[in-house]
């Protein structure tokens, strides 16, 4: 698949105000910093950033060793976010993620010890290795932006972004996320192998850990929050909503899918497209924005119908990509 780069804004003084351009400059710096470490994955990086701006959560599904963890690290460093990593295993308990109240001898009461989820960027590594119970604890926190332990509710920090990784589910000893849980992730990315040139640079280059350690934040969390809050100001025209509805409609009518896209998926599509427009420095959404985020937002929510034999995800996605732009 060709890597669509966010469209350069067609500069038109009457169209673009100053604020979108400033945002774009700041975000471009973040991308540039990240691209210096994760080579040849600009598109994925941008999608991940878009997901973050849209206040969604990201699922990265791929084989081990393609840089899933590095991506999370780099994003956290480039945005100056507080970062925690949770390695999911089959014996991981919900309390290991959320935190627990532990008896404190000094003051004679229970004190809540926040778990690793109380971070701005949480890497949930190999989420499909944990039991469904633990998985759902994480997913609930992702949805609610808060954690309730023993009757008390604790707000999660802002921004809050979960980056979960998953090995392809045909590996033995995993608990595949049910579809209902997959729906909670705004996007799912596959990193894939780097291309020859990028891999060569990677092999020749310095240790990635070292590079990450030396990174400085290209943006402050406050700026990120401001950008997140600006998301809804990105204009979505009626014509664009027509397009999104046409996509949803096609997914629901097409015989290729077991079920159509949910309204949540549609909502996610709008938000992700808005975020993509912000990355492009535009104050409105274009059909190209929708097309850029469409595979990442939609693919994990669609199941092939029983008689649809070609399981490759590109084939599965084709009917939606072919929806005419109204």
């Amino acid at each position, binding site marked *: 698949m060709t890597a669509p780069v966010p*469209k350069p804004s*067609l500069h*038109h003084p*009457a*169209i673009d105000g100053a604020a979108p351009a400033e945002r774009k400059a700041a975000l471009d710096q973040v991308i540039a910093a990240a691209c210096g470490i994760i080579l040849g994955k600009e598109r994925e990086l941008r999608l991940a950033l878009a997901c973050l701006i849209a206040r969604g959560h990201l699922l990265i599904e791929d084989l081990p060793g393609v840089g899933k963890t590095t991506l999370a690290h780099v994003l956290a460093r480039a945005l100056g976010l507080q970062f925690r990593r949770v390695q999911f295993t089959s014996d991981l308990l919900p309390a290991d993620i959320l935190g627990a109240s532990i008896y404190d001898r000094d003051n004679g009461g229970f004190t809540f010890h926040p778990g690793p989820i109380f971070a701005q960027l949480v890497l949930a590594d190999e989420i499909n290795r944990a039991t469904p119970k633990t998985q759902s604890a994480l997913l609930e926190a992702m949805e609610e932006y808060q954690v309730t332990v023993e009757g008390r509710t604790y707000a999660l920090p802002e921004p809050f972004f979960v980056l979960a990784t998953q090995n392809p589910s045909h590996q033995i000893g995993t608990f595949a996320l049910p579809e209902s849980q997959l729906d909670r992730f705004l996007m799912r990315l596959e990193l894939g192998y780097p291309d020859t040139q990028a891999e060569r640079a990677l092999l020749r280059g310095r240790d990635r850990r070292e590079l990450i350690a030396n990174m400085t934040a290209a943006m402050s969390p406050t700026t990120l929050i401001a950008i997140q809050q600006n998301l809804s100001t990105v*204009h979505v*025209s009626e*014509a*664009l909503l*027509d397009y999104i509805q046409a996509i949803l409609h096609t997914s629901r009518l097409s015989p290729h899918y077991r079920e159509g896209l949910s309204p949540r998926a549609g909502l996610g599509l709008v938000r992700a497209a808005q975020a993509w427009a912000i990355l492009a420095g535009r*104050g*409105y*959404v*274009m*059909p*190209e924005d929708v*097309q850029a985020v469409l595979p990442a937002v939609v693919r994990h929510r669609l199941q092939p119908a029983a008689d649809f034999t070609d399981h490759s995800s590109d084939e599965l996605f084709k009917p939606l*990509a*072919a*929806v*005419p*732009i*109204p």
Partner: protein
Amino acid sequence: MNTRASSPTPLRNETLFQLLAVLGLVVLPHATHLPPWLTALVFSLGAWRWVAARQGLRLPVTWLRVPLTLLTLSAVFAHYGTLLGRDSGAALLIAMLGLKLLEVRETRDVYVVAFLGYFLIIIHFLFTQSMLMVAYMLVIVTLLTTVLIDLNRGRPTPLPVNLRLAGSLVGYALPLTLVLFVLFPRINGPLWGMPNDAYSGMTGLSDEMAPGRISQLSLSDAVAFRASFDDTLPLPQQRYWRGPVFTVTDGEGWRSGRRRDTAAIQSPSYRYFGKPLHYSVIVEPHNRAWLFALDLPASVPPASQITGDFQLLANQPLRERRRYDMTSYPDYRTGPLSDEERQRNLQLPAAGNPRARALAASWRRDTNSPLEIVQTALRMYREQHFVYTLSPPLIREEFVDGFLFDTRKGFCEHYAGSFAFLMRAAGIPARVVTGYQGGELNEIGNYLIVRQRDAHAWTEVWQDGVGWSRVDPTAAVAPERIERGIAPGLQGEGTAVRFEWTRDQLFNQVWRGLRHGWDALNTRWNQWVLGFDMQHQTQLLSRLSLAGFSWQTVATALMTLTGTVLALLVLRRLDAERRGGDPVTRLYQHFCKKLARRGLHRTVNEGPDDFAQRVSRARPDLARQIRSISALYIALRYGGHDPRLQLTRLRREVRAFRP
């Protein structure tokens, strides 16, 4: 039918007021034929409804409306003596319209009343089909449509907006109307068929000539017919329009004899000389069968015949304007008389008018030549102080004697009648011909207008070798009558007729110009719109090489055509809706179409910017234009910008775009 019908929609007062005003305009022209009390009733009912709406009063309850309706119906019946026919039918409808206003409460009622209004507009064409009335009706139709538009608006809308929409709707309808007008199959009859009660009160020549009949007509300015000539106009002294011919006399009056329907012009003994006159006549309805033609007609219009004495008779009484083409020869020679014809044209009452008979007998003794007798008689009229007047003194008995020897004051029928009497008494076959003489030239339309006041009577005498020839004794008395025509409305009691004013006054000329221009316009209207009958339609179709199709074929073709056009319009509309009917999208599609013609096709799922980049790479020479247009389109369609801001620019750039 639909939800609107089942659930009453309240009526806005503004709509009601508009409706009442327009209905007033609908009824107004009908006031010319309605009894005044009915016009007053309808307008007061409308006023009642108006006040009730303004003051929020309750409308009259059923027990009041029912007697009111019955009363009105009886009054209409009492006035006309019937509820059938054109006049009483129209009156009935208008009365019902007024009464219906009292129960206009909902949207549904407005529909009923508005459609009744449309119907009344059409009804009025049964009374008049003048050009002005058509223009007026067109305005009223537009206004009534405006009311219907306002009715269907959810919220109050400014009148000009509705008017513009109604105007464009009527405008769209006009081409279709024209096509249907030309092509819609005509039945063999008038455009506006009317029941018999419509024909009372038409003026024109009568089927007998009694002293005073024609002089009555002479006071009438009404147009009898118009004649337009293909090339040359006839000379004033040739403008004798032949009408009824009379052969039977009782000594005072004249009437036509037994009708002999022999086709005179086909007889080989009639010969014509010189150049023929080709012309067409549009005759006003006069409820008789006569058609008028110059002496002597040499052709017979369709659906009519010519009699042995050269009268043209239509098969049906003329109840509509009729247009026909004619050929006449001013120089002619008719053939010999049969004994029976000679007898008829020498007929005189057994007794009476002895002095006239004696005079004729004395002429007869002096000479044997009919020509000399005719000239003697004309000399007598000329030299013995005969006066041409519209109000001759009454002659109680022995009419010819009284006129010739006592009063010597008369109008054309006196002269024609007495002259024919004298000729017959002198043994020369003679008959009286009535018709019209002269006509006013309309320089603008280049045609002659012949009015009722041009009605005239003259005589024909028969001579051996010559046949029938025209002798106009009036010309001997008052040659100006023949050369100039008769001036309207200037005849005082007992005074001699004054002839047309000299025409050098500027005012008269301007006035004449206006009058003639208007008449010319109306003549065109009569000729091409009202006169467009089955025959003319056939002619037109054959000129378009569409002749020979039956009316069923034409009707089917028209319906198919209309259906196809409608279907195409609906499809286009649906298509526009599917593809986004707004101008921005259309302009962009136009732009894409221009590129597609150069082989650069946009796929349906290709975003505008992707497409712009792709075609810019393919055509770097156009890149600047393509980017500009695309940017404008994206900004307008997706950027949430006010379309009015940049639409003109987009339109201009797309138009200027020449890939």
